[in-house]
């Protein structure tokens, strides 16, 4: 079973020996229970690290920040960054490596296994607890979550409050790491696409109504994009102006920037934004579920990405996030790719 003490020990050693610049991990957030990202620079601060089912974030998103920061430094510190990753997060690293966005030597991966469980869903937890406030959540050794509250401990079968994505996770241990804590427990998924099947089986009109209602809610805060480790473009199609401007960019180039999507948060514009995002993540999304978790209006964005993950697998036999040497889904093809839809 993954032990936080092992992680701390390794982290302390890395920092003490100066092998990493800093370590991205989880610490306790200000409400005293839920995890938050922490950035640890000194060995004596390592004790703030935690590992429990509240560690929901995909920290690889901060590797994107790190790369940008480093690009601006005049004399960059070239040591790697230590990062704690779960199974899903490690698949994000695989994709970042596959796309050559990061270099393997730039990261030191401290993997943790989710031990056939995963992380919890805050909303499911809140529902379960009602008025009670959680103080600590741990994974028990019988596949249950042990929730401590002021009123005492509650044990809940993990499956009841697990995040949806964890219920459909293909490998809940890291696929790439330098050190790993915990076991590589194989799991067999009965319904790897159970969540989207409930939408697939609807009639087209019902599906339309579903998505219309969902995407209507979008306020375009771009949390889904911002939290996603794969959304690392310098300039996004929804940005109001060119972001990648240099002193040499001509006025004409700036003036010619097409406004594909208008700023108004209306369905027609929200739709294009979310479709572009979904397509752009086709064959790249590793299903960490961060977009959906970050969304303040609970738009089920994972359902879009999961659908394309399924199509990539079924149409092209493409599995994302396990092999960093394979070409990316849409930068390769097979002669035998299906074309029954083409006239």
């Amino acid at each position, binding site marked *: 079973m993954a032990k936080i003490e092992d992680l701390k020990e390794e982290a302390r050693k890395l920092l003490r020996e100066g092998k990493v610049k800093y370590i991205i991990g989880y610490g306790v957030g200000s409400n005293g229970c839920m995890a938050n990202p922490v950035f640890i620079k000194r060995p004596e601060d390592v004790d703030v690290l935690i590992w429990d089912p509240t560690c929901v974030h995909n920290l690889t998103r901060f590797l994107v920040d790190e790369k940008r920061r480093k690009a601006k430094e005049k004399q960059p510190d070239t040591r790697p960054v230590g990062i704690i990753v779960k199974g899903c997060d490690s698949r994000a690293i695989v994709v970042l490596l596959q796309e050559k966005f990061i270099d393997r030597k730039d990261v030191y991966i401290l993997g943790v296994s989710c031990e056939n469980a995963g992380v919890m869903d805050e909303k499911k937890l809140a529902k379960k607890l009602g008025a009670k406030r959680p103080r600590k959540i741990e994974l028990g050794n019988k596949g249950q979550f042990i929730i401590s509250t002021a009123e005492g401990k509650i044990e809940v079968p993990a499956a009841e409050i697990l995040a949806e994505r964890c219920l459909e996770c293909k490998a809940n241990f890291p696929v790439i790491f330098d050190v790993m804590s915990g076991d590589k427990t194989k799991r067999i998924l009965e319904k790897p696409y159970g969540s989207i099947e409930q939408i697939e089986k609807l009639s087209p009109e019902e599906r339309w109504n579903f998505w219309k209602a969902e995407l209507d809610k979008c306020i375009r805060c771009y949390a889904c994009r911002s939290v996603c480790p794969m959304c690392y473009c310098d300039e996004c199609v929804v940005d109001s102006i060119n972001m990648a401007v240099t002193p040499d960019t001509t006025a004409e180039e700036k003036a010619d920037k097409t406004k594909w999507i208008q700023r108004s948060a209306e369905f*027609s*514009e929200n739709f294009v934004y979310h479709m572009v995002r979904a397509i752009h993540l086709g064959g790249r999304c590793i299903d960490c579920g961060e977009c959906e978790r970050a969304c303040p209006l609970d738009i089920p964005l994972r359902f879009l990405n999961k659908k394309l993950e399924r199509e990539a697998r079924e*149409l092209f036999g493409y599995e994302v996030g396990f092999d960093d040497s394979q070409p990316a889904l849409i930068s390769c093809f097979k002669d035998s790719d299906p074309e029954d839809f083409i006239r």
Partner: protein
Amino acid sequence: MKAEEFEPRIVAFLCKWCSSAGSDLAGVSRMEYPANVVPIQVMCSGSVSPLYIFSAFNRGADGVLVSGCHPGDCHYIKGNFYARRRLNMVKKLLEYVGLEPERFQMSWVSAAEGTKYTQIIKDFVKELKPLGPQTKLRRTR
């Protein structure tokens, strides 16, 4: 009084080397086909970003066609193979969100296939007519 028949507007992204030439052939051969198409010449079907397709619907297209060279005939060797992969995903996605699948079509039309091009357009228009105007994705004020 008979209501005016709905005439769908089709945005067609035609590759310069094959499909666009095919549509030209249809034109110079005086083949008759419906005038519902707004053709946009692109260098290769592989250069058609999914964004163009969403955007065409967003600006009110009733149907979108992407047409390129037959597999093996791409001027850039493999552009149409990439298009085939990418746009298959787009098609699945559009179906998944509940857009009528008939509204997005893809075809291979060579420079010699003027007849095939006219047939594709005829069929497309015929399929779109019963669907009526595409209002789902259209930008409103």
